[in-house]
């Protein structure tokens, strides 16, 4: 047994040549080894690092003009400048606050409205068709209207992000509550739960996995609508950095803004995912990776 383990942990050429590669990667011995040196994280980094090295080399060798594609080293120094002047932090902070505020407003309203529509039949008949219609409007189409109505201050930006985040959460709440297992609801009815208690103690917890999926989709949409709002009219934020870079021909600004958005989007989703894992620890879900092995 231990002999097999060590064989699998140290892949030999013969092993690979005979098609043992899949076996090696699927093996538990390899997974254990991987955890020790965190091979998973390294594997995820390998491709970006390789691309960066390639990028730097190609630009330095003159394959691409540096003013169109600044090399990573130039980007690092630009980022350093922007960070030192405090403007990178300010842009990031402003954008993050906008997304957070818009997301909180949109998601909260969606939870309330979604619950109401799912639980009260007359309300569903009354408003759901309208919401389905509004949902079909590409959210960017709201931008001119919002600018006309609210000017170019914070309000139209927050409203746009709120609209963008509303629909995924609304849909997840509505369908999540509609799909709760009748058998669990019966347990509540048998215990004599009130409508209110039924909602809080059975329906919402049961719908929570779906709602979390909606929240995560909404948050990433929030970043998308943030950029749309900031590109059009703003004096601060990462979207402003993007349009500023375009107007002044600073490709490096554009790259820094894109990278910051990538990092922020990933970070905020990771936070939400960590929260999801904590809150939904009770879920009895299949581990697909293990199921494949």
């Amino acid at each position, binding site marked *: 047994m231990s002999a097999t383990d060590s064989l699998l942990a140290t892949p030999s050429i013969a092993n690979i040549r005979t098609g043992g590669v899949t076996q090696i990667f699927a093996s538990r011995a390899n997974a254990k080894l991987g955890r020790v040196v965190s091979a998973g994280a390294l594997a995820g980094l390998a491709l970006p690092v390789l691309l960066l090295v390639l990028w730097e080399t190609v630009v330095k060798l003159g394959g691409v003009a540096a003013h169109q594609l600044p090399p990573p080293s130039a980007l690092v120094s630009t980022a350093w400048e922007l960070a030192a002047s405090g403007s990178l932090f300010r842009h990031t902070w402003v954008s993050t606050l906008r997304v957070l505020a818009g997301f909180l407003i949109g998601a909260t309203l969606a939870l309330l409205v979604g619950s109401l529509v799912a639980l009260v039949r007359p309300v569903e008949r009354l408003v759901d068709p309208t919401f389905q219609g509004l949902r079909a409007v590409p959210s960017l189409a709201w931008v001119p209207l919002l600018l006309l109505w609210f000017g170019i201050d914070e309000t139209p930006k927050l409203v746009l992000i709120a609209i963008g985040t509303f629909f995924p959460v609304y849909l997840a709440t509505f369908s999540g509550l509609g799909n709760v297992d009748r058998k669990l609801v019966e*347990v509540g009815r048998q215990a004599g739960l009130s409508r209110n*208690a039924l909602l809080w103690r059975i329906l919402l917890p049961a719908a929570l996995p779906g709602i979390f999926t909606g929240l995560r989709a909404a948050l990433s949409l929030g970043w998308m609508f943030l950029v749309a709002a900031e590109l059009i009219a703003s004096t601060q934020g990462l979207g402003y950095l993007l349009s500023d870079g375009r107007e002044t021909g600073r490709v490096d600004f554009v790259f820094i803004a894109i990278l910051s958005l990538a990092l922020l989007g990933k970070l905020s989703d990771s936070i939400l995912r960590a929260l999801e894992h904590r809150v939904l620890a009770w879920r009895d879900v299949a581990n697909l990776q293990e199921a494949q092995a």
Partner: protein
Amino acid sequence: MTGALLAVKLKEKRHGARTVLRDIAFEVGPSEIVALLGTSGCGKSTLLRTIAGLDTQYTGEIRHDAGRTGFVFQEPRLMPWLSVADNVGFPLGHAQGGHPRVAALLEEVGLSHAANYFPKQLSGGMAQRAAIARALVSQPDLLLLDEPFSALDVLTKGRLHRLVRDLIQRHRIGAVFVTHDPDEALALSTRVLVMPSEPGPFLERLDVDGAGTDSERLALRERILSALAAHGESVPC
């Protein structure tokens, strides 16, 4: 019978155009365990759900003199997001896993060590024991059980039979349980009511309590089987 916890006089119960139950009458007193025995699809679960108030459309009368009713479903039906203790305390209110009665019942059903487990970590027998504890936590006078042991292996089933019998006797409550298994009905109940496969009154009412010896039990078993067979039905599965 005076002092009955439950008096059922059901004239008719329909599902749409189809009659499911007709002319069903029986009573349950304290410490009595009544088995409703019948073949699959004879309406025994519907009868139990009607008694519990989960199905409300019927003609006739169902009188509860019991204060509270506990229900054990065919599946455990635990809330997957609650710990075992919170599940058992569920009828008492939100986050009642710390209630002293919960701890006492977990002890009684042998799940004290699993109080903080999530339902996904339980075996079928453990989950059903938690469900039984949940049904008892609000101190019901009447316990309704809908084939609660049908998905369990023989050994677990036997253990749970003894457990439920003890609990019912110790808590001095009445119980109605549904089963398709004559042996289970004889093992657990004080009275067996045999339901016909077509809607109509009970085919047999058998007092099991007096039957102490094996031969007496065998005789009862024969009577149950012949009652079912005489009605043009195959032996219940």
